[in-house]
């Protein structure tokens, strides 16, 4: 294993892609992902990777070329953000339904409009029903580690689905932090030589991709996608254990922090949960039994594991960095209530929609949210189910 170095989140992602050395990368630059593509194209120009780099004129073409390359038996990757992901939309669904093991870092940014380049999760949440797996990570290290594991998860014969690796735009992508990269050889050994299950270009095993699929089979194919995601629940843990053997870094469905005896807890995604960890530490010093769940796997949603993890919690705050505009809470809130509705525990749940368009959420904010949860625990009442935290009204 190599030394600790200081890199931006984008540099860490580009490094992971360099070490993976994919057969094909087709990508279009967009803030805040730009640096990933820029650095990677430099690796191609310098000849330090063997990748065929396809410069395209849009993200729709980026995903189309990635789909074509993957169907042709190549290990294919791309990366995007926000409006770029939105422009890929049509082909994002096709990548999943064609069962192509593509890995795509998404550097999370608010979808327009109004136009904004900063972090929220509206881009990823828009793609939550596309059939991709979705991993989230707190920092550059998690994004780097997730990309490497995502490759194994995607390519696993029981899964065969694309994986989106989410990393917070600017907060992580443009911040320098310490990371411990793996040695090139360790990554090569971990991901192995790519052996595609099928290839459009294999004359001995002819296959058809993207045919018309009407009332008689479409539904069965959709059901098979669900099977792939069900298998992914096991595969994510298996690959996580293998990665732990290699690095000592532990990845499962989520991280539980000081949750065992906790009465109040927060659940959320990505960089905010790091700040929340410090909030937990501060409240614990006051004797308040606070804890948190830092969710890594959003698609598929780890229902059973979350039920077990939350069984003794009295009040749960659900942190959403995106809205659904349902007037019924954010996307994670919907999943959590759905998970716990008929589980029979008396858990009270409060939703916080926060940080849209990159609005900062700091340690005092998160401590304040925990104190609100404590108030709910003490008087047994949820005053406001869905809260827009940190907005001027």
């Amino acid at each position, binding site marked *: 294993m190599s030394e600790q170095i200081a890199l931006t989140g984008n540099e860490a992602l580009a490094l992971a892609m360099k070490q993976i050395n994919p057969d094909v990368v087709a990508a279009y630059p967009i803030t805040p992902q730009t640096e990933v593509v820029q650095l990677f194209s430099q690796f191609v120009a310098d000849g330090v990777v063997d990748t065929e780099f396809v410069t395209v004129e849009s993200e729709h073409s980026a995903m189309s070329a990635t789909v074509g390359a993957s169907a042709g038996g190549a290990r294919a990757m791309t990366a995007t953000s926000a409006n770029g992901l939105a422009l890929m939309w049509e082909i994002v669904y096709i990548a999943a339904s064609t069962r192509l093991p593509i890995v795509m870092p998404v550097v999370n940014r608010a979808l327009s409009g109004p136009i904004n380049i900063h972090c929220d999760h509206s881009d990823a949440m828009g793609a939550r029903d596309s059939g991709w797996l979705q991993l989230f990570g707190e920092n550059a290290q998690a994004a780097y580690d997730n990309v490497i594991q995502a490759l194994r998860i995607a390519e696993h014969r029981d899964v065969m689905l694309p994986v989106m690796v989410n990393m917070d735009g600017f907060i992580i992508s443009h911040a320098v932090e310490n990371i411990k990269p793996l040695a090139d050889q360790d990554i090569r050994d971990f991901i192995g030589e790519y052996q595609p299950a099928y290839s459009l270009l294999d004359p001995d095993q002819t296959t058809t991709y993207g045919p018309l699929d009407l009332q008689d089979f479409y539904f069965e194919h959709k059901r098979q996608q669900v099977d792939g995601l069900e298998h992914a629940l096991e595969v994510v843990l298996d690959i996580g254990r293998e990665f732990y053997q290699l690095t000592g870094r532990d990845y499962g469905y989520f991280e539980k922090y000081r949750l065992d005896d906790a009465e109040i807890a927060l659940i959320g995604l990505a960089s905010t949960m790091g*700040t929340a960890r410090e909030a937990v530490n501060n409240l614990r010093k006051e004797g308040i039994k606070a804890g948190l769940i830092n969710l890594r796997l959003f698609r598929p949603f780890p229902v059973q594991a979350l039920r077990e993890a939350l069984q003794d919690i009295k009040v749960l705050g659900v942190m959403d960095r995106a809205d659904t505009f349902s007037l019924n809470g954010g996307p994670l809130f919907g999943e959590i209530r759905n998970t716990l509705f008929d589980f029979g525990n008396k858990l009270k749940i409060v939703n916080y929609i926060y940080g849209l368009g990159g609005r900062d959420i700091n340690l005092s904010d998160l401590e304040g949210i925990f104190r609100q949860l404590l108030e709910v625990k003490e008087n047994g009442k949820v005053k406001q189910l869905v809260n827009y935290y940190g907005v001027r009204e």
Partner: protein
Amino acid sequence: MKGMFEIRWHGRGGQGSKTASILLAKIAAASGNYVQAFPEYGPERMGAPVLAYTRINNHPIHLHCQIEEPDLVVVLDPTLIGAVDVTANLSKGGDLIINSEKEPGQLKDTLGTGDDIKLFTVDANQISEEEIGRVFPNTPMLGAINKVINWLELTRFTELAGEELKRKFSGKAEVVFGNLRAIERAYQEVKGL
């Protein structure tokens, strides 16, 4: 660094606040610390007030938010004083280093700072002009910071800074040496100690 140390950088677009925030973090990382460095990205324009942050800790850093109460504020451009509240939320007992040819005492009244904030000045414009050949106040400020917070041995600091500068200015030895001389001079010349 023992425990968390947080720095806020005030500058104007083009002066290198972001570069300095990252250089300092990389020096700190190379000396075995955990770090974070990040600018506050707004509508970037040459000359507009900008902010950047550096966190240094000997333990892993979990916070992913702007710095609420910095231990040190560094001002790369004296014309920001009055235009921007550079002392906002500066911790009690915190340090303020300003790029200025004035004595700290001369700025104390303008800033309205009390005795709970320690004020330092260094003429980073002049130093950089003489050593690098143009006004680039960001690297000399690194030397002033190292002195003010009484952090690394000067030779150790310039050795680590040199490694980073070599990477940054790949091969341009004169630029690297100019920056290193500027760092050393600012270390010696910072006023208010």
